[in-house]
């Protein structure tokens, strides 16, 4: 059984000792005694080696991109180049204080000026803020801009439209800005139903949030008409950049008619996902919305880079300081190394890989929308469910085969969904290994679904009881 670090404590042990000096209690005499801590908190008392060993052993219980193929749909688990870690931890980036004067941080400012320039070209937007810390944070920022914009021009618009295939963050972000959500159904081609959209659009709609390609991995072919319909009613069109990896150098949200875009640097631009974060979610807007962006933005004037805090209609700040700077350094390094051709080739290969896997797998799994896909595709585990093992079981069985499972049960509009995104950095060999495993699992379920139901058996734990976890929450060690 895996002991917690608390159980490894030996009273009196201290991993790192800062000083042998006995620190005098007089130090805190200036603070009233009733405001000082009396209870000793439970924290580990453990040697440095034991700490290192504990976390090293834990790390080995993770499946990661660097150890396994990780086709987690919509998350773009591409290779994270190691140079990014080296550049982000350069002393000149890692060891500067955000309140340092501009003259001492010109390199950082230059980077934060150049990165938006690159992102503008990739997305077709006019101005970009780097402040949001993640994709959902970017969405929230974008929706605040929508809200502020309509307040400014004196229009009362209370609704935001999202397709039923949207990421869960889309409706939540809009709701956090006080908008009511109107969900529209996808048509039988897995795309926005234009008739449904027309019906939903009215002069109290503030925006349509769209992911393109959508979460089924399909490009919204009618995007130009969608943009026109939305703009004709005076609403704004918002681009969820989660799937930007499919289209770099091919098209961009600006060409498609979007007004606001967020970009997930931890997806498309290769910064590591870190077990859940940090990410970065820059937001770009068209010219008419530029004054609504969070402050500060970075400008180049008189041969120097400056923070500009003076945007007349700014929504304010969404985060302290300037964004997840360390993540920005990584993304900037990546874009420099990829360049125009590399980024375009990345998108081409990402889409090529997805189509290859889709064609190979559709013989064994139901494919709801059978047509060329973009960077990801969605299978259904319906057939296998009939045979006795559902999508969850397939996912767990994949762990036994040494893979991270795809995204499952999303998007919600596909039964027993299995959403696969290989990304461009996977070789044919890696994809074939995964395909073979999926085929073997499909065959195995036909013969004996129990194996999948019992899976995983080769991971560090057997199937985890999530019901027990939710019924009797044990949320901290005490």
């Amino acid at each position, binding site marked *: 059984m895996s002991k917690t670090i608390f159980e490894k404590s030996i009273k009196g042990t201290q991993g790192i000792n800062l000083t042998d000096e006995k620190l005098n209690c007089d130090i805190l005499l200036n603070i009233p005694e009733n405001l000082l801590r009396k209870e000793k908190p439970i924290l580990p008392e453990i040697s440095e080696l034991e700490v290192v060993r504990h976390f090293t052993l834990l790390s080995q219980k993770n499946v990661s991109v660097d150890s396994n193929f990780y086709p987690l749909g919509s998350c773009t688990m591409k290779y994270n180049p190691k140079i990014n870690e080296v550049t982000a931890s350069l002393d000149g980036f890692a060891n500067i204080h955000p309140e340092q004067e501009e003259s001492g941080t010109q390199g950082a400012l230059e980077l934060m000026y150049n990165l938006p320039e690159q992102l503008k070209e990739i997305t077709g937007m006019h101005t970009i803020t780097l402040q949001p810390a993640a994709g959902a944070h970017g969405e929230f920022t974008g929706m605040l801009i929508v809200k502020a914009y309509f307040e400014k021009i004196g229009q009362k618009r209370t609704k935001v439209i999202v397709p039923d295939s949207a990421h869960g963050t889309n409706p939540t972000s809009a709701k956090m800005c006080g908008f009511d959500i109107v969900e529209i159904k996808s048509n039988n081609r897995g795309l926005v139903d234009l008739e449904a959209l027309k019906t939903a659009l009215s002069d109290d709609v503030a925006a349509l949030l769209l992911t393109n390609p959508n979460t089924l991995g399909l490009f919204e072919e009618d995007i130009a008409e969608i943009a026109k319909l939305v703009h004709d009613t005076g609403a704004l069109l918002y681009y969820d950049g989660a799937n930007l990896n499919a289209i770099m150098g091919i098209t961009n949200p600006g060409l498609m008619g979007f007004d606001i875009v967020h970009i997930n640097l931890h997806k498309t631009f290769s910064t590591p996902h870190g077990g859940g974060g940090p990410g970065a979610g820059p937001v770009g807007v068209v010219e008419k919305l530029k004054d609504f962006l969070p402050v500060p933005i970075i400008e180049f004037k008189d041969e120097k880079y400056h923070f500009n805090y003076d945007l007349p209609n700014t929504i304010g700040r969404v985060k302290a300081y300037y964004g997840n700077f360390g993540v920005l350094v990584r993304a900037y390094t990546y874009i420099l190394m990829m360049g125009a051709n590399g980024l375009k080739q990345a998108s081409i290969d990402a889409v090529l890989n997805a189509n290859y896997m889709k064609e190979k797998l559709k013989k064994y799994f139901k494919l709801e929308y059978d047509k060329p896909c973009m960077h990801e595709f969605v299978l259904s585990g319906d057939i296998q469910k009939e045979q006795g093992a559902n999508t969850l079981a397939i996912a767990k069985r994949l762990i036994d085969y040494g893979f991270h499972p795809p995204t499952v*049960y999303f998007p919600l509009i596909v039964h027993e969904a299995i959403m696969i995104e290989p990304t461009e950095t996977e070789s044919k060999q890696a994809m074939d290994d995964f395909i073979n495993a999926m085929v073997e699992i499909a065959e195995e379920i036909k013969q004996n679904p129990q194996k999948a139901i019992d899976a995983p058996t080769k991971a560090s734990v057997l199937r985890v009881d*999530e*019901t027990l976890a*939710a*019924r009797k929450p044990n949320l901290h060690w005490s």
Partner: protein
Amino acid sequence: MQAPDGILCAKTHEYLLQKDSVYKFGITDYAVEQLGDIVFVEMPEVGTEFEKGEILGTIESVKAASELYMPANGKIVEINETLIDNPELVNNSPYEDGWIVKIETEDEKALNALMEYEDYQEFIEE
């Protein structure tokens, strides 16, 4: 699962069962099956009045949350406190130990609009 006699069901899969002057409220065995393992039931405060169709609480499995709709205008007179620590009672015994709240109502019109169990069976088969 055998539903008790006299049960009245809503299209949103809640049931009412008259017990003296009040009604026991819960979710049907069909709803339980759909939701899977119940992990949490959010209940209103005793004394709260709701109109028909208002959300009186939510019921959650590990990865789904469903709202509970008030089937008739009325007042919550009791909640099933044992569900706080034992939400699995809804799975094991939706009509008995797994009831959720007790409701006082005189909303005959709404009560008449509810389905008897047999009609409900037909409804869910559709």
